[in-house]
Protein backbone atom coordinates (compact mmCIF):
# COMPACT_ATOMS: atom_id res chain seq x y z
CA UNK A 1 0.00 0.00 0.00
CA UNK A 2 1.33 3.41 -0.93
CA UNK A 3 1.91 5.63 2.09
CA UNK A 4 3.53 8.63 0.45
CA UNK A 5 3.36 9.70 -3.16
CA UNK A 6 5.17 12.81 -4.29
CA UNK A 7 4.13 14.15 -7.69
CA UNK A 8 6.09 16.78 -9.64
CA UNK A 9 7.11 18.58 -6.49
CA UNK A 10 9.01 21.82 -7.20
CA UNK A 11 10.35 24.67 -5.17
CA UNK A 12 12.14 27.76 -6.42
CA UNK A 13 13.80 30.46 -4.39
CA UNK A 14 13.77 33.42 -6.75
CA UNK A 15 15.45 32.14 -9.91
CA UNK A 16 16.98 29.11 -8.22
CA UNK A 17 15.13 25.83 -8.60
CA UNK A 18 16.13 24.01 -5.43
CA UNK A 19 13.84 21.08 -6.18
CA UNK A 20 12.23 20.46 -9.53
CA UNK A 21 9.77 17.76 -10.58
CA UNK A 22 10.50 15.49 -7.69
CA UNK A 23 8.65 12.18 -7.93
CA UNK A 24 8.71 9.52 -5.24
CA UNK A 25 6.56 6.67 -4.09
CA UNK A 26 6.98 5.01 -0.74
CA UNK A 27 5.00 2.00 0.44
CA UNK A 28 4.03 1.20 3.97
CA UNK A 29 6.87 -0.34 5.97
CA UNK A 30 9.69 0.51 3.57
CA UNK A 31 13.05 1.92 4.61
CA UNK A 32 14.13 4.36 1.94
CA UNK A 33 17.32 6.35 1.53
CA UNK A 34 17.61 9.77 -0.08
CA UNK A 35 21.16 10.59 -1.10
CA UNK A 36 22.89 13.13 -3.26
CA UNK A 37 25.91 15.43 -3.36
CA UNK A 38 26.04 18.55 -1.20
CA UNK A 39 23.46 21.13 -2.23
CA UNK A 40 21.42 18.62 -4.21
CA UNK A 41 18.20 19.68 -2.45
CA UNK A 42 17.75 16.84 0.03
CA UNK A 43 16.95 18.95 3.06
CA UNK A 44 14.79 21.24 0.92
CA UNK A 45 12.83 18.16 -0.09
CA UNK A 46 12.36 17.29 3.61
CA UNK A 47 11.28 20.82 4.36
CA UNK A 48 8.72 20.61 1.57
CA UNK A 49 7.37 17.29 2.80
CA UNK A 50 7.01 18.54 6.38
CA UNK A 51 5.46 21.89 5.51
CA UNK A 52 8.37 24.14 6.48
CA UNK A 53 8.35 25.42 2.91
CA UNK A 54 5.29 25.72 0.75
CA UNK A 55 5.86 23.95 -2.58
CA UNK A 56 5.78 26.11 -5.73
CA UNK A 57 4.19 23.24 -7.58
CA UNK A 58 3.24 19.62 -7.14
CA UNK A 59 1.39 17.32 -4.79
CA UNK A 60 2.34 15.41 -1.67
CA UNK A 61 -0.14 12.60 -1.18
CA UNK A 62 0.23 11.16 2.32
CA UNK A 63 -2.25 8.45 3.34
CA UNK A 64 -4.43 9.36 0.34
CA UNK A 65 -4.62 13.06 1.28
CA UNK A 66 -2.75 15.98 -0.23
CA UNK A 67 -0.69 17.54 2.52
CA UNK A 68 1.10 20.09 0.32
CA UNK A 69 0.64 23.59 1.74
CA UNK A 70 -0.27 22.48 5.26
CA UNK A 71 1.58 24.00 8.21
CA UNK A 72 4.32 21.90 9.85
CA UNK A 73 2.25 21.12 12.94
CA UNK A 74 -0.64 19.93 10.77
CA UNK A 75 1.68 17.64 8.81
CA UNK A 76 2.97 16.22 12.10
CA UNK A 77 -0.59 15.68 13.30
CA UNK A 78 -1.29 13.75 10.09
CA UNK A 79 1.46 11.31 11.08
CA UNK A 80 4.73 12.51 9.58
CA UNK A 81 7.53 13.24 12.05
CA UNK A 82 11.09 14.37 11.46
CA UNK A 83 14.47 15.02 12.99
CA UNK A 84 16.79 17.83 11.97
CA UNK A 85 20.20 17.88 10.35
CA UNK A 86 21.44 20.37 12.93
CA UNK A 87 19.91 18.98 16.11
CA UNK A 88 16.95 21.04 17.33
CA UNK A 89 16.22 19.82 20.81
CA UNK A 90 14.60 21.98 23.47
CA UNK A 91 18.12 22.47 24.75
CA UNK A 92 17.44 24.00 28.16
CA UNK A 93 14.71 21.56 29.13
CA UNK A 94 15.14 18.14 30.70
CA UNK A 95 15.28 15.00 28.58
CA UNK A 96 11.86 13.85 29.76
CA UNK A 97 10.25 17.26 29.11
CA UNK A 98 11.56 17.12 25.55
CA UNK A 99 9.64 13.88 25.04
CA UNK A 100 6.57 15.01 27.00
CA UNK A 101 6.18 18.04 24.73
CA UNK A 102 5.94 15.73 21.74
CA UNK A 103 2.95 13.93 23.32
CA UNK A 104 1.05 17.22 23.26
CA UNK A 105 -1.16 16.44 20.27
CA UNK A 106 -2.30 13.18 21.83
CA UNK A 107 -3.22 14.75 25.14
CA UNK A 108 -6.93 15.18 25.60
CA UNK A 109 -7.41 17.42 28.65
CA UNK A 110 -8.18 21.10 27.99
CA UNK A 111 -6.61 24.28 29.36
CA UNK A 112 -9.56 24.56 31.75
CA UNK A 113 -8.99 21.01 32.91
CA UNK A 114 -5.41 22.00 33.70
CA UNK A 115 -6.29 25.27 35.43
CA UNK A 116 -9.01 23.70 37.58
CA UNK A 117 -6.91 20.53 38.10
CA UNK A 118 -9.78 18.28 37.05
CA UNK A 119 -9.33 14.49 37.22
CA UNK A 120 -8.75 14.51 33.45
CA UNK A 121 -5.59 16.53 34.07
CA UNK A 122 -4.13 14.02 36.51
CA UNK A 123 -5.06 11.12 34.26
CA UNK A 124 -3.56 12.79 31.21
CA UNK A 125 -0.35 13.80 32.97
CA UNK A 126 0.18 10.34 34.41
CA UNK A 127 -0.31 8.77 31.01
CA UNK A 128 2.20 11.14 29.39
CA UNK A 129 4.72 10.54 32.16
CA UNK A 130 4.47 6.76 31.78
CA UNK A 131 4.63 6.80 27.99
CA UNK A 132 7.59 9.18 28.00
CA UNK A 133 9.51 7.02 30.45
CA UNK A 134 8.78 3.91 28.38
CA UNK A 135 10.13 5.59 25.29
CA UNK A 136 13.25 6.77 27.11
CA UNK A 137 13.84 3.21 28.28
CA UNK A 138 13.74 1.97 24.69
CA UNK A 139 16.36 4.56 23.78
CA UNK A 140 18.42 3.79 26.91
CA UNK A 141 18.00 7.33 28.18
CA UNK A 142 15.90 6.59 31.27
CA UNK A 143 18.80 7.30 33.64
CA UNK A 144 19.21 10.71 32.11
CA UNK A 145 15.52 11.67 32.22
CA UNK A 146 16.12 14.60 34.56
CA UNK A 147 19.24 15.89 32.82
CA UNK A 148 19.19 19.03 30.74
CA UNK A 149 19.17 18.05 27.05
CA UNK A 150 22.11 20.25 26.01
CA UNK A 151 24.37 18.47 28.52
CA UNK A 152 23.96 15.09 26.82
CA UNK A 153 26.78 13.75 24.66
CA UNK A 154 26.25 14.26 20.95
CA UNK A 155 25.20 10.70 20.13
CA UNK A 156 22.58 10.73 22.88
CA UNK A 157 21.20 14.04 21.66
CA UNK A 158 20.67 12.40 18.26
CA UNK A 159 18.94 9.46 19.93
CA UNK A 160 16.78 11.80 21.99
CA UNK A 161 15.72 13.63 18.85
CA UNK A 162 14.56 10.37 17.31
CA UNK A 163 12.77 9.42 20.54
CA UNK A 164 11.04 12.79 20.57
CA UNK A 165 9.92 12.37 16.95
CA UNK A 166 8.50 8.92 17.79
CA UNK A 167 6.51 10.41 20.66
CA UNK A 168 4.31 12.18 18.11
CA UNK A 169 3.28 8.65 17.07
CA UNK A 170 4.06 8.96 13.37
CA UNK A 171 3.42 6.62 10.48
CA UNK A 172 6.32 8.01 8.48
CA UNK A 173 9.58 9.06 10.08
CA UNK A 174 11.96 11.38 8.24
CA UNK A 175 15.54 11.31 9.48
CA UNK A 176 17.82 14.09 8.26
CA UNK A 177 21.42 12.83 8.48
CA UNK A 178 20.97 10.86 11.70
CA UNK A 179 24.58 9.63 11.66
CA UNK A 180 26.19 13.03 11.09
CA UNK A 181 29.13 13.43 13.44
CA UNK A 182 28.99 9.88 14.76
CA UNK A 183 31.94 7.50 14.89
CA UNK A 184 31.73 4.09 13.11
CA UNK A 185 30.68 2.27 16.27
CA UNK A 186 27.91 4.79 16.98
CA UNK A 187 26.81 4.60 13.34
CA UNK A 188 26.64 0.83 13.58
CA UNK A 189 24.51 1.04 16.73
CA UNK A 190 22.29 3.58 15.02
CA UNK A 191 21.74 1.17 12.10
CA UNK A 192 20.58 -1.48 14.55
CA UNK A 193 18.34 1.04 16.27
CA UNK A 194 16.75 2.20 13.03
CA UNK A 195 16.01 -1.38 11.98
CA UNK A 196 14.60 -2.15 15.38
CA UNK A 197 12.31 0.87 15.74
CA UNK A 198 10.92 0.25 12.30
CA UNK A 199 9.78 -3.18 13.34
CA UNK A 200 8.72 -2.24 16.85
CA UNK A 201 6.71 0.88 15.87
CA UNK A 202 5.61 -0.43 12.43
CA UNK A 203 7.17 2.61 10.82
CA UNK A 204 8.02 3.67 7.35
CA UNK A 205 11.34 5.51 7.31
CA UNK A 206 12.86 7.92 4.84
CA UNK A 207 16.39 8.99 5.64
CA UNK A 208 18.89 11.43 4.24
CA UNK A 209 22.44 10.32 4.81
CA UNK A 210 25.96 10.96 3.68
CA UNK A 211 27.39 7.91 5.38
CA UNK A 212 27.26 5.35 2.55
CA UNK A 213 27.85 2.37 4.81
CA UNK A 214 24.69 3.27 6.69
CA UNK A 215 22.59 3.94 3.60
CA UNK A 216 23.74 0.81 1.77
CA UNK A 217 23.44 -1.21 4.98
CA UNK A 218 19.87 -0.45 6.04
CA UNK A 219 17.96 0.96 3.08
CA UNK A 220 15.90 -1.26 0.80
CA UNK A 221 15.59 1.32 -1.92
CA UNK A 222 17.49 4.50 -2.61
CA UNK A 223 16.60 7.70 -4.41
CA UNK A 224 19.49 9.79 -5.71
CA UNK A 225 18.97 13.53 -5.95
CA UNK A 226 21.17 15.90 -7.94
CA UNK A 227 20.44 19.52 -8.83
CA UNK A 228 16.95 19.13 -7.39
CA UNK A 229 15.84 16.20 -9.55
CA UNK A 230 15.85 12.47 -9.03
CA UNK A 231 18.57 11.05 -11.28
CA UNK A 232 18.27 7.43 -10.22
CA UNK A 233 16.43 5.09 -7.93
CA UNK A 234 16.73 1.41 -7.12
CA UNK A 235 18.20 -1.10 -4.73
CA UNK A 236 21.58 -0.34 -3.12
CA UNK A 237 23.29 -2.71 -5.55
CA UNK A 238 21.72 -0.99 -8.56
CA UNK A 239 22.64 2.44 -7.25
CA UNK A 240 26.26 1.46 -6.64
CA UNK A 241 26.74 0.50 -10.27
CA UNK A 242 24.62 3.27 -11.84
CA UNK A 243 26.90 5.38 -14.07
CA UNK A 244 24.79 8.52 -13.56
CA UNK A 245 25.22 8.28 -9.80
CA UNK A 246 28.94 7.74 -10.07
CA UNK A 247 29.13 10.75 -12.33
CA UNK A 248 27.16 12.94 -9.89
CA UNK A 249 29.42 11.97 -7.03
CA UNK A 250 32.80 11.69 -8.67
CA UNK A 251 32.50 13.72 -11.86
CA UNK A 252 32.64 12.47 -15.42
CA UNK A 253 35.06 9.74 -16.25
CA UNK A 254 38.17 11.06 -17.95
CA UNK A 255 39.82 8.64 -20.31
Amino acid sequence: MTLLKVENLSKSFGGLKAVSNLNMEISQGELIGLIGPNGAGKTTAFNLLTGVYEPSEGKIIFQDKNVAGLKPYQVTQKGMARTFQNIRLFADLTVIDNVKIAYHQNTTYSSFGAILRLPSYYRGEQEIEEKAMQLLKIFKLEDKAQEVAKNLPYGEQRRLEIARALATQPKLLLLDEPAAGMNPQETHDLMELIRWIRKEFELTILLIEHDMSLVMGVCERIYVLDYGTIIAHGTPAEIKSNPKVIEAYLGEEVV
Partner: protein
Amino acid sequence: MSRWINSKNIFILIALLAIYGLVQGMTLTDTLPPFYRLNLILICIYIILATSLNLINGITGQFSIGHAGFMAIGAYISAIITVKLHGPLLLGLIAGAIVSAIAGFLIGLPTLRLKGDYLAIATLGLGEIVRIIFLNIEYVGGASGFSVPKTITWTWAFWLMVISVLVIRNFINSTHGRACISIRENEIAAEAMGINTTKYKVLAFTIGAFFAGLAGGIYANYMYIIQPMTFSFLKSFDILVMVVLGGLGSLTGSILGAIFMTTIGAVLASLSEWRLVITALLLVVMMLFRPTGLMGTKEFSLNFLKGKKG
Protein backbone atom coordinates in the same frame (compact mmCIF):
# COMPACT_ATOMS: atom_id res chain seq x y z
CA MET B 1 -9.60 16.07 45.83
CA SER B 2 -7.25 13.84 47.79
CA ARG B 3 -4.48 14.75 45.35
CA TRP B 4 -4.59 18.30 46.66
CA ILE B 5 -3.96 17.30 50.23
CA ASN B 6 -0.28 16.87 50.88
CA SER B 7 2.14 18.44 53.32
CA LYS B 8 3.40 20.90 50.70
CA ASN B 9 -0.01 22.34 49.88
CA ILE B 10 -1.02 22.39 53.53
CA PHE B 11 2.14 24.34 54.33
CA ILE B 12 1.43 26.86 51.55
CA LEU B 13 -2.17 27.25 52.67
CA ILE B 14 -1.12 27.86 56.29
CA ALA B 15 1.51 30.38 55.15
CA LEU B 16 -1.04 32.23 53.01
CA LEU B 17 -3.61 32.26 55.81
CA ALA B 18 -0.97 33.51 58.23
CA ILE B 19 0.07 36.41 55.95
CA TYR B 20 -3.54 37.24 55.23
CA GLY B 21 -4.59 36.99 58.87
CA LEU B 22 -1.71 39.09 60.14
CA VAL B 23 -2.36 41.98 57.76
CA GLN B 24 -6.14 41.70 58.12
CA GLY B 25 -5.84 41.70 61.92
CA MET B 26 -3.61 44.75 61.88
CA THR B 27 -5.98 46.51 59.48
CA LEU B 28 -9.01 45.81 61.66
CA THR B 29 -7.27 46.94 64.84
CA ASP B 30 -5.90 49.94 62.97
CA THR B 31 -2.30 49.22 63.93
CA LEU B 32 -1.06 49.12 60.33
CA PRO B 33 -0.06 52.56 59.01
CA PRO B 34 -1.92 53.44 55.78
CA PHE B 35 1.36 53.71 53.91
CA TYR B 36 2.14 50.05 54.61
CA ARG B 37 -1.39 49.01 53.69
CA LEU B 38 -1.09 50.83 50.38
CA ASN B 39 2.18 49.12 49.55
CA LEU B 40 0.97 45.68 50.54
CA ILE B 41 -1.96 46.04 48.17
CA LEU B 42 0.35 47.41 45.49
CA ILE B 43 2.52 44.32 45.95
CA CYS B 44 -0.53 42.12 45.28
CA ILE B 45 -1.36 44.14 42.15
CA TYR B 46 2.22 43.99 40.88
CA ILE B 47 2.48 40.25 41.55
CA ILE B 48 -0.52 39.72 39.26
CA LEU B 49 1.01 42.01 36.64
CA ALA B 50 4.48 40.47 36.81
CA THR B 51 3.37 36.82 36.74
CA SER B 52 1.00 37.49 33.84
CA LEU B 53 3.69 39.32 31.88
CA ASN B 54 6.07 36.47 32.64
CA LEU B 55 3.63 34.05 31.02
CA ILE B 56 4.05 36.02 27.77
CA ASN B 57 7.70 37.08 27.97
CA GLY B 58 9.36 34.42 30.06
CA ILE B 59 7.36 31.26 29.47
CA THR B 60 6.30 31.70 25.85
CA GLY B 61 9.32 33.83 24.92
CA GLN B 62 7.36 36.55 23.12
CA PHE B 63 8.86 39.86 24.15
CA SER B 64 5.90 42.13 24.88
CA ILE B 65 6.26 45.51 26.58
CA GLY B 66 2.75 46.86 26.36
CA HIS B 67 1.38 45.41 29.59
CA ALA B 68 0.30 48.79 30.98
CA GLY B 69 -2.08 49.09 28.03
CA PHE B 70 -4.00 45.99 29.13
CA MET B 71 -3.88 47.22 32.71
CA ALA B 72 -5.47 50.48 31.52
CA ILE B 73 -8.25 48.64 29.69
CA GLY B 74 -9.07 46.64 32.81
CA ALA B 75 -8.91 49.75 35.00
CA TYR B 76 -11.20 51.88 32.85
CA ILE B 77 -13.72 49.16 32.00
CA SER B 78 -14.07 48.11 35.64
CA ALA B 79 -14.35 51.76 36.72
CA ILE B 80 -17.05 52.43 34.12
CA ILE B 81 -19.03 49.47 35.44
CA THR B 82 -18.65 50.26 39.13
CA VAL B 83 -18.98 54.07 38.87
CA LYS B 84 -21.01 54.93 35.79
CA LEU B 85 -23.24 51.86 35.73
CA HIS B 86 -23.26 51.28 39.53
CA GLY B 87 -22.49 47.60 39.05
CA PRO B 88 -21.02 45.37 41.74
CA LEU B 89 -17.24 45.37 42.19
CA LEU B 90 -16.77 41.72 41.23
CA LEU B 91 -18.67 42.24 37.98
CA GLY B 92 -16.50 45.27 37.22
CA LEU B 93 -13.28 43.36 37.84
CA ILE B 94 -14.34 40.39 35.74
CA ALA B 95 -15.63 42.57 32.90
CA GLY B 96 -12.40 44.58 32.89
CA ALA B 97 -10.37 41.39 32.71
CA ILE B 98 -12.52 39.92 29.94
CA VAL B 99 -12.48 43.05 27.79
CA SER B 100 -8.72 43.22 28.26
CA ALA B 101 -8.42 39.57 27.23
CA ILE B 102 -10.49 40.23 24.11
CA ALA B 103 -8.23 43.18 23.29
CA GLY B 104 -5.22 40.92 23.89
CA PHE B 105 -6.63 38.33 21.52
CA LEU B 106 -7.36 40.88 18.77
CA ILE B 107 -3.98 42.56 19.17
CA GLY B 108 -2.09 39.31 19.55
CA LEU B 109 -3.43 37.69 16.41
CA PRO B 110 -1.63 40.06 13.99
CA THR B 111 1.32 41.21 16.15
CA LEU B 112 2.51 37.78 17.29
CA ARG B 113 3.61 37.10 13.72
CA LEU B 114 6.44 39.49 14.53
CA LYS B 115 9.53 38.31 16.31
CA GLY B 116 11.94 39.74 18.87
CA ASP B 117 12.52 43.49 18.64
CA TYR B 118 9.69 44.01 16.18
CA LEU B 119 7.15 42.50 18.52
CA ALA B 120 8.52 44.62 21.38
CA ILE B 121 8.13 47.80 19.32
CA ALA B 122 4.63 46.87 18.15
CA THR B 123 3.41 46.10 21.68
CA LEU B 124 5.03 49.25 23.04
CA GLY B 125 3.16 51.26 20.41
CA LEU B 126 -0.14 49.49 21.13
CA GLY B 127 0.19 50.19 24.84
CA GLU B 128 0.59 53.88 24.04
CA ILE B 129 -2.37 53.83 21.63
CA VAL B 130 -4.61 52.46 24.37
CA ARG B 131 -3.45 55.22 26.70
CA ILE B 132 -4.05 57.95 24.10
CA ILE B 133 -7.53 56.61 23.39
CA PHE B 134 -8.51 56.89 27.06
CA LEU B 135 -6.88 60.32 27.18
CA ASN B 136 -9.28 61.51 24.51
CA ILE B 137 -12.51 60.05 25.84
CA GLU B 138 -14.33 62.72 27.84
CA TYR B 139 -16.74 60.13 29.22
CA VAL B 140 -13.95 58.75 31.43
CA GLY B 141 -12.52 62.12 32.39
CA GLY B 142 -9.79 62.53 29.80
CA ALA B 143 -6.46 63.82 31.09
CA SER B 144 -7.82 65.06 34.42
CA GLY B 145 -8.68 61.52 35.45
CA PHE B 146 -11.56 59.38 36.53
CA SER B 147 -12.56 59.33 40.21
CA VAL B 148 -13.40 55.89 41.51
CA PRO B 149 -14.47 55.24 45.10
CA LYS B 150 -12.18 52.96 47.02
CA THR B 151 -13.88 49.60 47.37
CA ILE B 152 -10.91 47.24 47.20
CA THR B 153 -9.84 45.88 50.55
CA TRP B 154 -6.86 43.77 51.54
CA THR B 155 -9.10 40.69 51.40
CA TRP B 156 -9.98 41.33 47.72
CA ALA B 157 -6.45 42.15 46.64
CA PHE B 158 -4.79 39.28 48.46
CA TRP B 159 -7.11 36.47 47.40
CA LEU B 160 -7.41 37.68 43.82
CA MET B 161 -3.62 37.65 43.69
CA VAL B 162 -3.53 34.09 45.07
CA ILE B 163 -6.13 32.92 42.54
CA SER B 164 -4.28 34.60 39.66
CA VAL B 165 -0.94 33.04 40.54
CA LEU B 166 -2.58 29.65 41.03
CA VAL B 167 -4.32 29.78 37.64
CA ILE B 168 -1.14 30.81 35.84
CA ARG B 169 0.89 28.17 37.66
CA ASN B 170 -1.63 25.43 36.84
CA PHE B 171 -1.63 26.48 33.21
CA ILE B 172 2.15 26.38 33.01
CA ASN B 173 2.44 22.96 34.65
CA SER B 174 0.38 21.23 31.99
CA THR B 175 0.77 20.06 28.44
CA HIS B 176 -0.48 23.48 27.32
CA GLY B 177 2.17 25.25 29.37
CA ARG B 178 4.82 22.91 28.01
CA ALA B 179 3.66 23.81 24.50
CA CYS B 180 4.29 27.49 25.36
CA ILE B 181 7.73 26.69 26.77
CA SER B 182 8.63 24.71 23.66
CA ILE B 183 7.92 27.81 21.56
CA ARG B 184 10.40 29.77 23.67
CA GLU B 185 12.99 27.01 23.36
CA ASN B 186 12.78 26.34 19.64
CA GLU B 187 9.84 27.41 17.54
CA ILE B 188 10.70 25.27 14.50
CA ALA B 189 11.07 22.14 16.60
CA ALA B 190 7.84 22.96 18.44
CA GLU B 191 5.97 23.08 15.12
CA ALA B 192 7.61 19.82 14.08
CA MET B 193 6.28 18.24 17.30
CA GLY B 194 2.72 19.02 16.23
CA ILE B 195 2.28 22.16 18.33
CA ASN B 196 0.15 24.92 16.83
CA THR B 197 2.57 27.69 17.76
CA THR B 198 0.30 30.55 16.65
CA LYS B 199 -2.53 29.24 18.81
CA TYR B 200 -0.37 28.98 21.92
CA LYS B 201 1.27 32.36 21.44
CA VAL B 202 -2.14 34.01 21.15
CA LEU B 203 -3.49 31.96 24.07
CA ALA B 204 -0.60 33.00 26.35
CA PHE B 205 -1.01 36.62 25.24
CA THR B 206 -4.76 36.49 25.92
CA ILE B 207 -4.36 34.95 29.38
CA GLY B 208 -1.62 37.50 30.16
CA ALA B 209 -3.91 40.34 29.06
CA PHE B 210 -6.78 38.92 31.14
CA PHE B 211 -4.78 39.10 34.35
CA ALA B 212 -3.27 42.47 33.50
CA GLY B 213 -6.86 43.69 33.10
CA LEU B 214 -7.79 42.17 36.45
CA ALA B 215 -4.85 43.90 38.11
CA GLY B 216 -5.90 47.16 36.44
CA GLY B 217 -9.39 46.76 37.86
CA ILE B 218 -8.05 46.22 41.37
CA TYR B 219 -5.80 49.24 40.94
CA ALA B 220 -8.64 51.50 39.71
CA ASN B 221 -10.97 50.56 42.55
CA TYR B 222 -8.32 51.17 45.17
CA MET B 223 -6.49 54.34 44.12
CA TYR B 224 -9.46 56.81 44.19
CA ILE B 225 -8.45 58.18 40.80
CA ILE B 226 -7.06 56.79 37.55
CA GLN B 227 -5.37 58.93 34.93
CA PRO B 228 -4.12 57.90 31.50
CA MET B 229 -0.58 58.96 32.50
CA THR B 230 -0.54 56.21 35.13
CA PHE B 231 -0.55 53.64 32.34
CA SER B 232 2.30 55.07 30.28
CA PHE B 233 5.13 52.94 28.95
CA LEU B 234 7.02 53.67 32.17
CA LYS B 235 4.50 51.44 33.95
CA SER B 236 5.12 48.72 31.36
CA PHE B 237 8.84 49.00 32.04
CA ASP B 238 8.29 48.81 35.80
CA ILE B 239 6.52 45.49 35.32
CA LEU B 240 9.13 44.29 32.84
CA VAL B 241 11.92 45.09 35.31
CA MET B 242 10.20 42.96 37.97
CA VAL B 243 9.98 40.05 35.55
CA VAL B 244 13.58 40.35 34.35
CA LEU B 245 14.90 40.87 37.85
CA GLY B 246 13.06 37.81 39.15
CA GLY B 247 14.04 35.70 36.18
CA LEU B 248 12.30 35.32 32.82
CA GLY B 249 10.45 32.04 33.00
CA SER B 250 10.18 31.75 36.78
CA LEU B 251 6.84 32.50 38.45
CA THR B 252 8.30 32.57 41.94
CA GLY B 253 10.99 34.85 40.51
CA SER B 254 8.30 37.26 39.30
CA ILE B 255 6.67 37.22 42.73
CA LEU B 256 10.02 38.02 44.35
CA GLY B 257 10.70 40.69 41.73
CA ALA B 258 7.32 42.32 42.36
CA ILE B 259 7.80 42.32 46.13
CA PHE B 260 11.37 43.57 45.83
CA MET B 261 10.70 46.42 43.39
CA THR B 262 7.58 47.62 45.20
CA THR B 263 9.43 47.58 48.51
CA ILE B 264 12.34 49.52 47.01
CA GLY B 265 9.86 52.02 45.59
CA ALA B 266 8.31 52.42 49.04
CA VAL B 267 11.62 52.73 50.86
CA LEU B 268 12.86 55.33 48.39
CA ALA B 269 9.54 57.17 48.29
CA SER B 270 11.05 60.12 50.16
CA LEU B 271 13.91 60.46 47.66
CA SER B 272 11.71 60.19 44.61
CA GLU B 273 14.26 61.70 42.21
CA TRP B 274 16.82 59.07 43.26
CA ARG B 275 14.44 56.15 42.90
CA LEU B 276 15.02 55.67 39.18
CA VAL B 277 18.77 56.07 39.57
CA ILE B 278 18.97 53.44 42.26
CA THR B 279 16.71 50.97 40.47
CA ALA B 280 18.74 51.47 37.29
CA LEU B 281 21.96 50.79 39.20
CA LEU B 282 20.43 47.68 40.71
CA LEU B 283 19.53 46.44 37.25
CA VAL B 284 23.02 47.09 35.90
CA VAL B 285 24.57 45.18 38.81
CA MET B 286 22.06 42.39 38.32
CA MET B 287 22.83 42.08 34.61
CA LEU B 288 26.56 41.97 35.34
CA PHE B 289 26.46 39.33 38.04
CA ARG B 290 23.30 37.38 37.36
CA PRO B 291 21.98 38.05 33.87
CA THR B 292 19.30 35.34 34.13
CA GLY B 293 17.62 37.15 37.04
CA LEU B 294 17.25 36.06 40.67
CA MET B 295 15.71 32.69 39.86
CA GLY B 296 16.66 32.10 36.21
CA THR B 297 14.01 29.78 34.81
CA LYS B 298 13.96 27.75 38.04
CA GLU B 299 11.13 27.79 40.55
CA PHE B 300 11.49 28.12 44.28
CA SER B 301 10.30 24.73 45.34
CA LEU B 302 8.79 23.31 48.48
CA ASN B 303 8.87 19.79 47.11
CA PHE B 304 11.06 18.62 49.96
CA LEU B 305 7.98 18.99 52.16
CA LYS B 306 6.11 16.49 50.05
CA GLY B 307 8.01 13.50 51.36
CA LYS B 308 9.04 10.61 49.16
CA LYS B 309 6.27 10.31 46.65
CA GLY B 310 3.07 12.13 46.08
